[in-house]
C-alpha cells in the first residue's frame, strides 16, 4: 500500500528534556521521523521543549515549536497550525501521554486531527496492565502458546495494596501505571517497604493505580523489538537479552543482542507471542517493544509488558542491527508497508525481513551516583543510569570489553593487578545488584570463586559467567610479550592499557610492540544480513578478525570524535555540535567520518555521516580508526572540540601521534585549562580573575585560603560539569575536602564571589575576527554550576556598555589562547568588576541553546572555521549574519530562557539544593516576547509549571531576607496565602505581608497536633515552596530542616525554589500566566524576526 495522500501535515511531539529514563534516543527517533516525513513531502509541525535536540533544528521541520509539551500549549499550536495528523509514538512516554490527554480532552476531535502510528485503544491496552494481562491470557489460550502473565493484583488504595500482598506473598513487585522509565516502582520485601513504595507509586501514577506482582526475581530477561505495518506484516528486528536477571531495570542492565541463551523453540515461542500480542493490542503500524521473563529452571515464560511506541531499546536495536526502527515506523505511519520500504544498508533488499547478526552487541549503563550523595545505589526496577555505551565485537568477550572501556570511567574495566578482596566479601557484594557488578564478579574469579558460587549469588546465566572465566583465563596467559598471546588477548577485547597493566608496560610501548607484530584491528560492516548481501552504507566496528571492509574514497576526510555515553555534564548538547559539524562539512565537500559509542544519539545514526565507526573513544581505538582511514585516503583533519571533554582529553596525545588535529591546537587547549598559563593570558590582557591558588596538600590549601579569604570555591583541575566542586566557608570544611580529594591532581582554590551575576558567553574566533554568539545571564547567582542554572538570552540586566566589556574581554582571551573555533567563557560581574572565571576553547553545553535563541548555526560555523573558513567568509555566505552578532540583538528581541532539569525524583533523599557541582541531566527552553512569560514557559516545560494560586511557604536564609520581601509581597498580591517559619514571617509581617507562622520540622508537631511544615507539604497542602539553604551541609538544625522541606517537595512534586533570584523570576512568570499573555511562536518565525 503506498503513501497516504489524504493527509498533508503531521504534528510530531518530542520527549522534552533529557531525564533519567528518557534521553537522547528520542532525539534520534524524532529526527529520523522528521527527516522521513519531510522527504515524503509532508508539512511537519514539531513540538519539543528541549533546545539541545537536533530534531528542533529549524531545518528538520516546517514549523518547530520549542514550547512546553503540555496539553494547553499543544492545543494553541494545533489551533494555529491545523495539522491533519498527530504522530505520538516517537517521543517516548511524554509524547504518548500528551496524545492521550489531547484525545481525552477532545482537542484532537475538535480540530480534526487523526492520531497515526498508534490508536488510543492500543495505547490504553498496552499501558493498562489489567487489559494487557487479559490479552496475554487470550492469545496464549487461542494459539496454544506458552505465555502467561505474572500473578498480580491492581490496587488503587493502600488498603488494597496490603490485602494484595497477603495474597501474593512477599516479596512483591510494585509498579505504578503510566509512569516512564519505571518511575516509582520497586520490590517490597515486607509491609514497611510496601507502604513506602506503593505510597509513592500511587502518588506518581496519573491514574492513582499500582500493580502488585509475584516476584520473578532472578529469572532471565529478554526483549523483542517488533514492527508491524498496516497490511499486518510483522517482523522482529532484534532480540535483546539482559545479563542482569529480572530485578534490575532493563535500562540499568548490561544487555546483549542478539539473545545468547535461547534455543530456537524458545525463541520462536517468544516471537509468536510477541506477534500475537501486538495484533491483539491493535498497534496499527510502527515499532513496539515487548519484554519477557523466563524461569531458567523450567522454561516458564512470562510476558512482562509492551510499549506501543519507539523506546530506548528500539534505538539500541536500531544501532545494533542497522535496521532504523524510527525511520521505518514513520514510513509505516503514513501508509507504506514493510515490503515497499527498501533496506538502506543493502539497497537491494526490502525492510520486510529480520536482521541477522554475525557479531555480538553489548550495552552497558553509565551511572552518576557520585553526584548524588546519600542516594541508594542498589539497582532495582527503578531506572537510575544517566547514559549508556554500546560496543560491537565478533565475540561476546570482545564486545563486552569494548563496551566497558567505552564507559570512560575509572574502574569500569576488568583488571588483574592490585590486591583482590576476599572471595566471600565479593560474593556478598554481588548479591545486591550494583554499578560495576560484572567487575565484582571478575574480581571474585580472581579470588577463586567458582561458576556455581557466582550463579548462586547473581543468577546470571552460566553461559555469561563462563565467558567471564574465559576472559580471566586469557588474562592469566598474558605473562610475556609474544605474538600468539597478544593476538589472543586482542581477540578477546583486551585494550593496550589492560595488557600494559598486566605486563607492567606503558600503553604506548604495548602499541608499538603490537604494531611491530602487524597486529591491528580490521573493520567489519554492520550490514543487517550477516554478509549475505553487500552493504552499501558503511557502518563499521573494529574487531581482530580477518578482512577489513573500509571503502576507499577520494574526497578529503574529516574525522569527528563524538562524546561517548551521556553523563551529567556531557550530554546531548555535544552530540548536537558533532552532528552539525558532520552535516555542514559534508555540504562543504568533505567526506565525514563519525566515531562514537553512544547508541542513543543522532551522531551514531548511520545516516548522519558518510561513515560511522561505532567505537570506544579511547586513544587506542581512535588511533586505529585514523590509521584505517588514512590507509584508504587522505585525512584532512580530526575534530576534537565538539564532543566535550572526552575527545578534548585525547587532543594532545593524538597530535603527538602525528594525527592532524584541526581547530584550536592542543597546546592552546592546555593554555586555557592550566591555571598558571591561563593566568598569564589574563594578566597580559589586563583582565581580572578572582584571586586563586593551586594546592597539593591540606597545608597549602589553608595557606591559600587564608591569603585570599573565605568563602572559597575548591575543585580538582581538569573536570567537566564541576565534579567534586564545593564552596567552602571555613578551615575545617577545607581540611575535610582536601582529605577526600585525589592527591594526584592539584586542587584549584578560587575566591568565591558572593552576590555576583554570572555570565556565560559562547563565541567563535577565526584568528582575526570574533563572533560573539550569545551572552547569557544566569538567573541564579554565581556559585551554582552554569549547567544547573537558569539563564536568559539576551541578558536581562546587562546594558550595551557591559556587553562591550564582555566582547573586548572575550576577544582578548580568544586571541591570547589561540582559539580557532568555539570558545566558552564564564564571567562574574561583582561590584561592577567583570571577573573571568574560566574559559573553555571548545563547544559548550549552551551551543544549541544559543544557536536556537539567536537563529545562527554556531556549531556549523565552528566546523567550517576549524577547516579554514573565516568569519568574514561565513558572513558573506549567509551562514552568519552579514553584520552584528549575538551581542547586538535588537532591543525588542524575544527573550529565551534556558532552565535545567534535575533528576532528584530518581534519587530520593538527596538534597536538591543547587551548588557548584552540576547535577542536571537536561534542559528546556522557553521563548516569548518578555522575560516573565519566557521564564514561566521554561518552568512549565521543566517541571510542569508554576502554581497561580494556593499556599506558598517561604523560609529563607538571613542573607536573602531583604531580597525576598518584594517578590513575596507580589505573591501575596496575586492571592497566595503565605506560610513562613518564624524568622521569615517576622520580616514579612514588618513589611506588610500577613504571613502565617508554621512549625519547623525540628519543632515537632504542636501541643494540639498542629502539623509541621513537612507534614503539611506531604499532605499536599502547599503549592509553592521557597526555601534558600543556610547552615553547612550535614549539620543539624536549620540546614537539616531545609533539607527535609526540600525532600518533601520532591516527593510531592511541588515547585520548590531554592534561590531568591529564582523567586523573583518565578513571580514574574506567575504574573504573566495569570494575565494569560503566553503565546506560541515557531523557531522559523523567530528566525524570520531576528534575521529577516
Amino acid at each position, binding site marked *: 500500500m503506498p503513501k497516504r495522500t489524504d493527509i498533508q501535515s503531521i504534528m510530531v511531539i518530542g520527549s522534552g528534556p533529557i531525564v533519567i529514563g528518557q534521553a537522547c534516543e528520542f532525539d534520534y527517533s524524532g529526527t529520523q521521523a522528521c527527516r522521513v516525513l519531510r522527504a515524503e513531502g509532508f508539512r511537519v509541525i514539531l513540538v519539543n521543549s528541549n533546545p539541545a535536540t537536533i530534531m528542533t533544528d529549524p531545518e528538520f521541520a516546517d514549523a518547530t515549536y520549542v514550547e512546553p509539551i503540555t496539553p494547553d500549549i499543544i492545543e494553541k499550536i494545533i489551533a494555529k497550525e491545523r495539522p491533519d495528523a498527530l504522530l505520538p509514538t516517537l517521543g517516548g512516554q511524554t509524547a504518548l501521554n500528551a496524545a492521550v490527554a489531547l484525545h481525552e480532552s477532545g482537542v484532537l476531535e475538535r480540530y480534526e486531527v487523526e492520531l497515526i502510528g498508534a490508536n488510543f485503544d492500543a495505547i490504553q491496552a498496552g499501558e493498562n496492565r489489567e487489559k494487557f494481562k487479559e490479552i496475554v491470557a487470550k492469545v496464549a489460550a487461542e494459539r496454544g502458546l506458552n505465555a502467561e502473565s505474572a500473578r498480580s493484583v491492581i490496587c488503587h488504595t493502600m488498603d488494597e495494596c496490603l490485602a494484595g500482598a497477603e495474597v501474593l506473598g512477599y516479596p512483591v513487585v510494585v509498579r505504578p501505571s503510566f509512569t516512564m522509565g519505571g518511575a516509582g516502582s520497586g520490590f517490597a520485601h515486607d509491609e514497611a517497604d510496601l507502604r513506602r513504595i506503593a505510597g509513592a507509586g500511587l502518588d506518581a501514577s496519573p491514574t492513582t493505580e499500582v500493580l502488585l506482582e509475584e516476584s520473578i526475581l532472578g529469572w532471565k530477561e529478554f526483549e523483542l523489538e517488533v514492527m508491524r505495518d498496516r497490511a499486518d506484516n510483522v517482523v522482529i528486528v532484534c532480540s535483546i537479552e539482559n545479563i542482569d536477571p529480572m530485578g534490575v531495570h532493563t535500562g540499568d542492565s548490561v544487555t546483549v543482542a542478539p539473545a545468547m541463551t535461547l534455543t530456537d523453540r524458545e525463541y520462536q515461542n517468544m516471537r509468536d507471542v510477541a506477534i500475537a500480542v501486538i495484533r491483539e493490542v491493535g498497534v496499527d503500524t510502527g515499532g513496539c517493544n515487548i519484554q519477557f521473563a523466563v524461569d531458567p529452571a523450567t522454561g516458564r515464560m512470562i510476558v512482562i509488558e509492551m510499549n506501543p511506541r519507539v523506546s530506548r531499546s528500539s534505538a539500541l536495536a536500531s544501532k545494533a542491527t542497522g535496521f532504523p526502527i524510527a525511520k521505518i515506523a514513520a514510513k509505516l505511519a503514513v501508509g507504506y508497508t514493510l515490503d515497499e520500504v527498501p533496506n538502506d544498508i543493502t539497497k537491494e533488499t526490502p525492510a520486510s*525481513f529480520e536482521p541477522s547478526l554475525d557479531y555480538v552487541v553489548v550495552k552497558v549503563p553509565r551511572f552518576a551516583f557520585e553526584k548524588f550523595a546519600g542516594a541508594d545505589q542498589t539497582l532495582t526496577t527503578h531506572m537510575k543510569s544517566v547514559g549508556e555505551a554500546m560496543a560491537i565485537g565478533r565475540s561476546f568477550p570482545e564486545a563486552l570489553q569494548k563496551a566497558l572501556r567505552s564507559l570512560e570511567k575509572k574502574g569500569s574495566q576488568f583488571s588483574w593487578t592490585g590486591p583482590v578482596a576476599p572471595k566471600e566479601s565479593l560474593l556478598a557484594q554481588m548479591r545486591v545488584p550494583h554499578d560495576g557488578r560484572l567487575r565484582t564478579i571478575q574480581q571474585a574469579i580472581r579470588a577463586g570463586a567458582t561458576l556455581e558460587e557466582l550463579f548462586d549469588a547473581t543468577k546470571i546465566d552460566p553461559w555469561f559467567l563462563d565467558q567471564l572465566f*574465559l576472559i580471566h583465563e586469557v588474562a592469566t596467559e598474558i605473562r610475556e610479550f609474544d605474538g600468539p598471546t597478544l593476538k589472543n588477548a586482542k581477540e578477546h577485547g583486551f585494550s593496550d592499557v589492560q595488557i600494559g597493566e598486566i605486563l607492567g608496560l606503558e600503553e604506548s610501548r604495548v602499541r608499538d610492540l603490537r604494531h611491530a607484530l602487524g597486529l591491528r584491528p580490521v573493520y567489519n560492516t554492520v550490514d543487517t544480513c550477516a554478509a549475505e548481501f553487500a552493504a552499501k552504507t558503511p557502518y563499521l566496528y573494529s574487531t581482530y578478525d580477518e578482512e577489513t571492509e573500509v571503502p576507499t574514497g577520494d574526497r578529503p576526510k574529516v574525522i569527528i570524535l563524538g562524546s561517548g555515553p551521556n553523563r551529567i555534564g556531557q550530554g546531548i548538547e555535544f552530540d548536537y555540535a558533532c552532528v552539525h559539524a558532520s552535516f555542514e562539512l559534508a555540504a562543504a565537500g568533505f567526506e565525514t567520518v563519525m566515531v562514537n559509542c553512544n547508541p542513543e544519539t543522532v551522531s551514531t545514526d548511520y545516516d548522519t555521516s558518510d561513515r560511522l565507526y561505532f567505537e570506544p573513544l579511547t586513544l587506542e581505538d581512535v588511533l586505529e580508526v585514523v590509521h584505517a582511514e588514512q590507509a584508504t585516503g587522505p585525512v584532512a583533519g580530526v575534530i576534537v572540540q565538539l564532543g566535550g571533554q572526552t575527545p578534548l582529553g585525547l587532543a594532545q596525545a593524538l597530535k603527538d601521534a602525528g594525527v592532524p588535529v584541526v581547530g584550536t591546537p592542543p597546546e592552546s587547549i592546555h593554555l586555557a585549562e592550566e591555571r598558571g598559563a591561563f593566568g598569564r593570558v589574563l594578566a597580559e590582557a589586563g583582565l581580572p580573575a578572582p584571586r586563586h591558588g593551586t594546592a597539593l596538600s591540606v597545608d597549602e590549601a589553608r595557606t591559600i585560603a587564608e591569603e585570599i579569604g573565605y568563602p572559597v570555591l575548591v575543585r580538582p583541575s581538569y573536570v567537566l560539569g564541576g565534579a567534586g566542586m564545593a564552596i567552602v566557608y571555613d578551615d575545617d570544611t577545607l581540611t575535610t575536602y582536601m582529605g577526600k580529594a585525589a592527591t594526584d591532581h592539584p586542587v584549584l582554590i578560587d575566591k568565591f564571589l558572593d552576590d555576583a551575576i554570572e555570565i556565560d558567553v559562547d563565541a567563535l574566533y577565526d584568528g582575526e575576527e570574533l563572533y560573539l554568539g550569545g551572552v547569557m545571564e544566569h538567573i541564579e547567582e554565581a556559585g551554582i554550576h552554569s549547567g544547573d542554572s537558569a539563564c536568559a538570552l539576551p541578558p536581562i540586566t546587562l546594558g550595551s556598555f557591559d556587553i562591550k566589556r564582555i566582547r573586548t574581554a572575550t576577544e582578548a582571551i580568544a586571541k591570547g589562547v589561540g582559539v580557532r573555533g568555539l570558545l566558552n567563557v564564564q564571567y562574574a560581574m561583582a561590584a561592577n568588576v567583570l571577573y573571568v572565571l574560566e574559559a573553555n576553547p571548545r563547544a559548550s553545553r549552551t551551543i544549541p541553546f544559543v544557536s536556537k535563541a539567536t537563529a545562527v548555526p554556531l556549531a556549523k560555523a565552528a566546523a567550517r572555521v576549524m577547516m579554514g573558513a573565516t568569519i568574514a567568509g561565513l558572513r558573506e555566505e549567509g551562514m552568519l549574519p552579514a553584520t552584528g552578532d549575538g551581542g547586538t540583538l535588537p532591543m525588542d528581541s524575544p527573550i529565551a530562557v534556558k532552565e535545567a532539569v534535575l533528576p532528584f525524583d530518581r534519587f530520593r533523599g538527596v538534597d536538591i539544593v543547587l551548588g557548584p557541582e552540576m547535577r542536571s541531566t537536561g534542559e528546556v527552553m522557553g521563548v516569548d516576547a518578555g522575560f516573565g512569560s519566557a521564564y514561566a514557559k521554561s518552568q512549565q516545560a521543566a517541571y510542569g509549571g508554576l502554581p497561580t494560586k494556593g499556599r506558598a511557604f517561604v523560609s529563607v536564609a538571613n542573607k536573602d531576607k531583604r531580597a525576598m520581601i518584594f517578590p513575596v509581597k507580589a505573591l501575596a498580591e496575586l492571592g497566595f496565602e503565605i506560610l513562613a517559619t518564624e524568622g521569615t514571617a517576622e520580616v514579612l509581617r514588618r513589611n506588610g505581608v500577613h504571613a502565617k507562622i508554621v512549625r519547623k520540622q525540628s519543632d515537632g508537631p504542636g501541643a494540639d497536633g498542629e502539623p509541621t511544615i513537612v507534614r503539611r507539604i506531604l499532605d499536599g497542602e502547599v503549592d509553592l515552596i521557597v526555601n534558600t539553604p543556610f547552615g553547612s551541609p550535614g549539620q543539624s538544625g536549620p540546614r537539616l530542616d531545609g533539607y527535609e522541606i526540600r525532600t518533601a517537595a520532591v516527593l510531592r512534586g511541588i515547585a520548590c525554589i531554592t534561590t531568591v533570584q529564582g523567586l523573583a523570576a518565578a513571580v514574574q512568570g506567575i504574573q504573566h500566566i495569570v494575565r494569560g499573555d503566553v503565546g506560541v511562536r515557531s523557531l522559523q518565525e523567530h528566525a524570520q524576526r531576528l534575521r529577516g
Partner: protein
Amino acid sequence: MTALLVLEDGRVFEGAPYGAVGETYGEMVFNTGMTGYQETLTDPSYHRQIVAMTAPHIGNTGVNDEDPESGRVWVAGYVVREPARVHSNWRANRSLDDYLREQGVVGIAMRGTRALTRHLRERGAMRAGIFSGGALPPVPELVEKVRRSPEMTGADLAAEVATTEAYVVPAIGEKRFTVAAVDLGIKGMTPHRMAERGCEVHVLPATVTAEALLALDPDGVFFSNGPGDPAAADHAVETLRKVLDAGKPFFGICFGNQILGRALGLGTYKLRYGHRGVNQPVQDRRTGKVEISAHNHGFAVDAPLDGPFDTPYGRAEVSHVNLNDDCVEGLRLLDRPVFSVQYHPEAAAGPHDAAYLFDEFCEVMGA
C-alpha cells in the same frame, strides 16, 4: 592442534578442531540463522554439505533430545567461530561438542567465518574440506583432495538420506486425513505439523513407486525437502507425474517444490550461494503479505514471474516469491489442488509465519 578449512579455489582458513577430528568433504555453504543449530545439524537437506554458521556463538544451549529433525547429524562438516565451553538450558542434556564427536562430525572453530561468507557470496558455493588431527599434508595437496571430491551439481542424494522402510506418524487427536509423504530427506517437524492437524502421515521411502503410493489411497500426497540436485531426481519426478495424473491433492516443500516444477515441465538451476537461514522475506502473491521464513536451498525453479503459464496439468503460477532476489519460492496449479513452496513452513529452525500452508493442504484434502 590446528584444523584447516580448504576451499576448492585454494583459499584456506585456519582454526582449531571442533567436534570430531579427521577429514571431511562437502559443498561449502553458510547459514545465517541465529538460533536452531541443533535443527540445522539434523536436517537431511544438509547431507554432503559443510555448513558454516555466521552467528559467532554456537552451542550455548547445548543439545537436547527434543529438537533434532532426524535421527542423526547430516552435515558433512561444521564451521563455527566461538564454540560454547559451558552450555546452559533447562532442556539440555549434553554439550554440542560432545554430540558432534559422538556423531563423528568433523568441524572447525575459526575466526574467519565472515570472510568465508563474503568469499562464498562473491564466488558462489564450492567444494571444501576440513582437515584436522596429526601432521597435515601441504596445502596444495589438500586443495587437490578437495577438487577430487564429488560435486553437488548432478548429485542424486535423496535415497541416501531417506528412510528405507515406510512408517506411520499417527494423527494427534482425531484422524481426518491420510497423507502419503515421500521422504526425500524429510524433517521430523513436517509430519508433526500435519499430524497436529489430524493427518495420519505415511512416510514412504524415496524409492517408492507411484503404484505403491497410490495403493494407500491417500487424501493427499506430500513430497518433502531433501539434498542434492533436482535435475538428477528423475525417479521422484516420474512418481509425482503419476500422482498428478491420478488427480490427488499435492503439497511439496523445498526439494518437493523443485520436483513439482520439473513435473510441470519447468527447469531448475543452481543458485550462486543459495538461501540458508531463518530471515528470508517471502511474499504470498495472492495476498501481498510477507512471511519471514526458514530457507535451505541451493537450487531453484525457473518459472515465469509475470503471470500464469501453461503446463501439461493446466495453468500454473508462481505463488510465492523471495523479495530479496525475486527467486521463485512457490508454485501452484490454478485449477487443481496442487501447490508447493521452496521454503520451510514447518520451520524448525525458524519462524512459524508460513504454518498456514499446512492448513491449506488440509483444506484442499477436505474439499
